[in-house]
C-alpha cells in the first residue's frame, strides 16, 4: 500500500514542478526500492503467516525454501504451511494445496501423481520418498519436506538431476539385440522365466531417490549409482541381447566406479519407492563379473 502513494505523486508532479521532482527523484529510487522490498516481504510473510491460526484438523508442513534469484530468499529457510487434512491426502496433495492457496512461488516437480513419472522424489521426514505415494497419515507431525540430499538445489524443492541422468545414460539403457528377431516375427520373444528374472529391475522410474540416499555415491561422483547399475542389470540379464552384449555390459560394470563401489549399506533398497531389490541386483552383477573373469577352462 505504501508504495502506491509516492508513485501516483510522481506521475502528477512532473507537469507542475520539474525542478522539485528532480530532487525528489534523486532521493526516492533507493528509498522506493527499499520500501517496495519491505512491503513485498511483509506481503510474503502475511501470505506465509496467514494460515498461522491452524484449523482443528490441519497438518503442519515444514518446507525447505531457497531461491538464488530473489534477494531475501537466497538464505535457505523453512516455511510453515498449515494444510487442512483430508482423507487419503498425500504429501504432494498437501504441497499443491500450499502452493495454490498460500504461496504461488513454492516450486516443486510433479506430473502424474501416481508414482509412475518419478518427478517428485523428496526428502520427507528424513527419508527419500515419492511425494505422491506418501500418505500424510503415515507420517509424524510436523511433516518436513526437503529437496533430495546430495544433489544441488536449484530452487525450493527442485534439485539438479543432470548428474543422475548422465550416470543413467552411461550404462546404455536401451535394448541392443545382436541379431534380427528369428523367423518372421517382428517381436523379440522372451521366455517367461527370463521375464520374471528382470521383472523387478524394469520397474525403475528414474526418480533418483536411491542415488540420493547412497552414501558412497555422495562421496564419489564417478560412481554409477544404484539406479544405473539396476538398469545395466535389466539388460545384462535379458537373454535376448546375446552373450557378447552381456559381456560388454559386464565390462562396463566391472570397474572401480561400477559395481565395486557398492558397499552394501542397503540405503537404496530401503528407500526405493518401487521396491526394487537394488542391492541384490548389484551383488548379482558383482558375482557375474567375477565369474566372467575367472575362467579356468
Amino acid at each position: 500500500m505504501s508504495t502506491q502513494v509516492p508513485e501516483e505523486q510522481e506521475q502528477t508532479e512532473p507537469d507542475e514542478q520539474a525542478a522539485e521532482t528532480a530532487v525528489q527523484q534523486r532521493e526516492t529510487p533507493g528509498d522506493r526500492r527499499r520500501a517496495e522490498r519491505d512491503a513485498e516481504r511483509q506481503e510474503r510473510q502475511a501470505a506465509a503467516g496467514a494460515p498461522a491460526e491452524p484449523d482443528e484438523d490441519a497438518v503442519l508442513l515444514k518446507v525447505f525454501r531457497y531461491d538464488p534469484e530473489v534477494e531475501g530468499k537466497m538464505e535457505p529457510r523453512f516455511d510453515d504451511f498449515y494444510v487442512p487434512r483430508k482423507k487419503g491426502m498425500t504429501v504432494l496433495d498437501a504441497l499443491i494445496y500450499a502452493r495454490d492457496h498460500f504461496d504461488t512461488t513454492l516450486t516443486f516437480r510433479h506430473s502424474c501423481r501416481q508414482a509412475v513419472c518419478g518427478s517428485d522424489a523428496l526428502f520427507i521426514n528424513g527419508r527419500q520418498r515419492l511425494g505422491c505415494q506418501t500418505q500424510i497419515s503415515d507420517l509424524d507431525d510436523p511433516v518436513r519436506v526437503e529437496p533430495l540430499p546430495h544433489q544441488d538445489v536449484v530452487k525450493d524443492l527442485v534439485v539438479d538431476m543432470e548428474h543422475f541422468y548422465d550416470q543413467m545414460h552411461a550404462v546404455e539403457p536401451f535394448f541392443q539385440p545382436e541379431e534380427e528377431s528369428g523367423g518372421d516375427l517382428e517381436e523379440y520373444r522372451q521366455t517367461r522365466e527370463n521375464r520374471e528374472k528382470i521383472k523387478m529391475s524394469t520397474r525403475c522410474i528414474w526418480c533418483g531417490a536411491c542415488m540420493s540416499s547412497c552414501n558412497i555415491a555422495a562421496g564419489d561422483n564417478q560412481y554409477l549409482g544404484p539406479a544405473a547399475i539396476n538398469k545395466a542389470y535389466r539388460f545384462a540379464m535379458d537373454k535376448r541381447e546375446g552373450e557378447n552384449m552381456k559381456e560388454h555390459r559386464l565390462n562396463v560394470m566391472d570397474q572401480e566406479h561400477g559395481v565395486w563401489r557398492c558397499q552394501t549399506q542397503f540405503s537404496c533398497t530401503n528407500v526405493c519407492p518401487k521396491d526394487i531389490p537394488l542391492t541384490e541386483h548389484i551383488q548379482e552383477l558383482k558375482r557375474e563379473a567375477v565369474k566372467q573373469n575367472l575362467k579356468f577352462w
Partner: protein
Amino acid sequence: MSQSYNRGLIEDFGRWKEFTAGMWAWILHKFTGWVLIGYLFTHIAVLSTATTGATAYTDTIQGLESLLVVRVMEVGLLAVAVFHILNGVRLLFVDLGLGLEQQDKSFYASLVVTGVIVLASVPTFLEGAF
C-alpha cells in the same frame, strides 16, 4: 549450475539418527576394521621389541597385564574383533546373495551375539584386575 545451493555435509553424519541398520553395520565395520589394524601394528611393535630373551618377553607381558587400562582394553579388543568377524560373515552372505531380506536382522543378531560373548568373557579378562 552456478546458481545452485550445495548443502554440504549436514546431510550426512548430521543425520545419524536417521541411519538404518545397513548403514550402522557399515560404519561399525569400518570402525572396527581400523581399530583392528591399529591393534595389529601396536601388537607387532610391542612384541618385536621384546624378543631379546625369555625374561624380556615375560617382563613385557607381565608389565602390560599389571596395568588396569590394558585389562579393560582387552575386553574392548575382543568386542571389536568379535563384531568384525560376525559382521564379516554377514557380509559374506550378502555377497553370496543369501538372506538379503534379513540383512538388518542379521546385523542386530551379530550385535547381540557380540554383547553376549563380551559379557561372558569379562570374568576371564578382568579376574583379579581390580
